[in-house]
């Protein structure tokens, strides 16, 4: 059992996040003029998956957090407003899915543009951010805090939210995720959705029992996402099981972050600084991890 000051009556908080990742994802592998055939799974997510997922969340009365790139937002502004009107939170995933550390001195402007495009379409500036491929630079947290974001949700290092102070006087909540509850990884390895949902149920039962955050990551796409009819049905069974456990509350990232800020959690130092001297003399030897998308 972990100690975390969840709101009264809450044993564990379920955080349903959706990666919109439509054409922005396909465009990592191809060009605008070739978004057909195998490069149209992103379009499936918007055309076929979105109504199905929205209907499921409405049936289960769950408000989710949708992480959207500015490029997808501009392509699908009406869809974004529909998601907003259904009571969900819209959060940022940058401009396209280029990893932030590759942007150099353009990183700050990219974060600002990601924020501003969503604000213009939905009427509200996003509060939350999740980095493409899970890649942050040493400056990202500071940029986010300075751009008015209240939380990041990219780390994988804890069972509950915590708070960074990336700039003087600024606080940024971290809402950590877990690989095991990201649909895209096992689906990209071509596991059945039944197997993926088996993993989710087992992971959830233990997280709930220990009073942890339960961060689900759902992709909208037709390939590595959960929005095909059979997958939505499988997902619904898991969500139903979760909701049936006493003390489970579904919370958006924004609500989780607001609660964390009000809880006066201890503030953590810069997560890079202690490692900087070693990193400065250690050559890059390649990344062995399997990437979240």
């Amino acid at each position: 059992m972990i100690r975390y000051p969840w709101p009264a009556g809450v044993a564990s908080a379920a955080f349903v996040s959706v990666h919109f990742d439509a054409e922005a994802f396909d465009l990592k592998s191809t060009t605008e003029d070739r978004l057909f055939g195998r490069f149209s799974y992103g379009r499936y997510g918007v055309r076929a998956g979105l109504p199905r997922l929205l209907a499921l969340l409405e049936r289960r009365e769950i408000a989710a957090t949708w992480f959207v790139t500015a490029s997808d937002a501009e392509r699908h502004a009406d869809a974004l407003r529909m998601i907003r009107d259904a009571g969900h939170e819209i959060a940022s995933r940058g401009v396209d899915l280029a990893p932030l550390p590759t942007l150099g001195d353009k990183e700050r402007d990219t974060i600002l543009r990601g924020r501003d495009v969503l604000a213009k379409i939905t009427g509200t500036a996003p509060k939350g951010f999740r980095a493409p491929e899970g890649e942050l630079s040493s400056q990202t947290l500071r940029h986010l805090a300075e751009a008015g974001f209240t939380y990041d949700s990219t780390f994988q290092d804890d069972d509950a939210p915590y708070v960074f102070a990336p700039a003087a006087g600024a606080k940024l909540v971290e809402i950590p995720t877990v690989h095991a509850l990201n649909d895209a990884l096992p689906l990209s390895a071509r596991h059945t959705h039944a197997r993926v949902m088996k993993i989710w149920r087992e992971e959830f039962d233990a997280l709930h029992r220990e009073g942890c955050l339960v961060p689900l990551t759902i992709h909208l796409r037709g390939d590595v996402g959960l929005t095909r009819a059979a997958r939505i049905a499988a997902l619904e069974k898991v969500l139903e099981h979760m909701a049936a456990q006493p003390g489970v509350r579904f919370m958006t990232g924004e609500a989780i972050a607001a609660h964390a800020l009000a809880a006066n959690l201890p503030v953590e130092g810069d997560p890079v600084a202690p490692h900087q001297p070693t990193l400065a003399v250690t050559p890059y030897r390649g990344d062995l991890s399997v990437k979240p998308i």
Partner: protein
Amino acid sequence: MRTTLPPDIRCAVTLGVDFDGTSHEVGRGIAPIGGHSWGRYSARRGIPRQMEALKRLGVPCTFFVPGYDAERHPELVREIDAAGFEVAAHGYLHEAWDVPKDEETALLRRTDDILKDILGKPVLGWRSPSGRKTANTMHVLKSLGYIYDSSDKDYDLPYRLRFGKGEDDWIVELPNNTYSLDDFPFFKFSYTPPSEVLAQWKEEFDAIYASDRFCVLVVHPRSGWGSGTPVRTQIFAEAIAYMQSHPGVQFFDSAGFARWCLDHSQHLEELNVTDRRAA
């Protein structure tokens, strides 16, 4: 001669937790943030959760700790030791261990010094980070006073690994298997549901209990491909409880079992690698 455990040891089990904190990423030149932050989970949540489970079950365990992680979490390393668990060495920055021979001594000594300094006592064992080692490694380990290595994958039983012609030029080898009696292959590569991983470990144990009677199970406390998270620590604990339910199973920490091997070295097969000295 083949190693045979005497009848009074019905089955020996050694459990290992390979700490693998931020050293894993930092050692590859990657800042341990965002999606690369799962090593932070080890000290924050994984080690405390796994220690609690091990204490509840009352079994010994060896924590193989990279020197870099020990430097960042000396209190936690002392807690592991104070709880009665063994602390052993696991590289400095979780190296891939493609080290030139003339640097190997300094590299092994660096972590040895860090751990000895924190613990106030000698370190007795080593497990290679990445599972690589050289023909020279055993010489260095022995010169540092280590009594065992637990990195080779070539056998189901402990043995004497002879690396030189001198009478004492051998070390106890406690071989492990990172394809089946480990957590990361299932959580990193095959995305196996935890209940199926548990079933696999139980089958492994059943077969071992019925044959060679020596079981080495290894987990990692990190998030991502490790087992520090709730359900994965739970199956680690369930696997241990399953072993405990079998008559005559004895749990050792790796140093404890290596000492038993030293005291009964006449029961141990010898593998002579003297001719495979590094150039």
